[in-house]
């Protein structure tokens, strides 16, 4: 997905922040099924990286602030 406006970036950043918080929470967890947690973290990390790339691509094409 390609982000085309500040509004789209803000919405993506909000979703990203929630996913990162959840990822950090999972890193601290010790109970439950370790394999399922590992799968979940692997999936969340891929999505987090995807969102970060989309935001970075948008920002890379913005004029430099004066």
């Amino acid at each position: 997905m390609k982000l085309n406006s500040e509004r789209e970036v803000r919405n993506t950043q909000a979703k990203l922040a929630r996913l990162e918080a959840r990822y950090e929470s999972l890193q601290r967890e010790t109970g439950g099924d370790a394999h399922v947690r590992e799968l979940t973290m692997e999936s969340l990390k891929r999505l987090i990286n995807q969102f970060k790339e989309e935001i970075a691509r948008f920002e890379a094409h913005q004029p430099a602030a004066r």
Partner: protein
Amino acid sequence: MIPPFNESGFLPPGVHRAALAEVEERFGRGSEIRRVQMDSVRWMAELAKRAGVERIILNGSFVTDIMEPNDVDCVLLVPEGFPMEPTSEMELRRGLPFLEILLVEREDFDELVDVTFASDRFGASKGMIELIA
């Protein structure tokens, strides 16, 4: 029955349950790329069933009115004790053409379905498909 698209080309908000045949009828025949993506969806569903996945959500441009979607986002709910069949899990993790497969536990499944994928990039609510057996 899968509801019609809204004026933006998305499904109306919510999780719309549909069998594989209905998904194919609605989303898997409109173009050559959709036919290929549908093949991957069918194979993913089979692997998910063998592996012991509890729920499958389809999202992304595949479930919009776009003629040639980029991909199919798949959110798979995995229960404790997963997988039933390790080789199927391995194939899901290796991936399938056009599919972005996320294997997650319940709390994160709910987050992805209720928040992350419940709105488009502009923040407008949109729907998704739950594949049922």
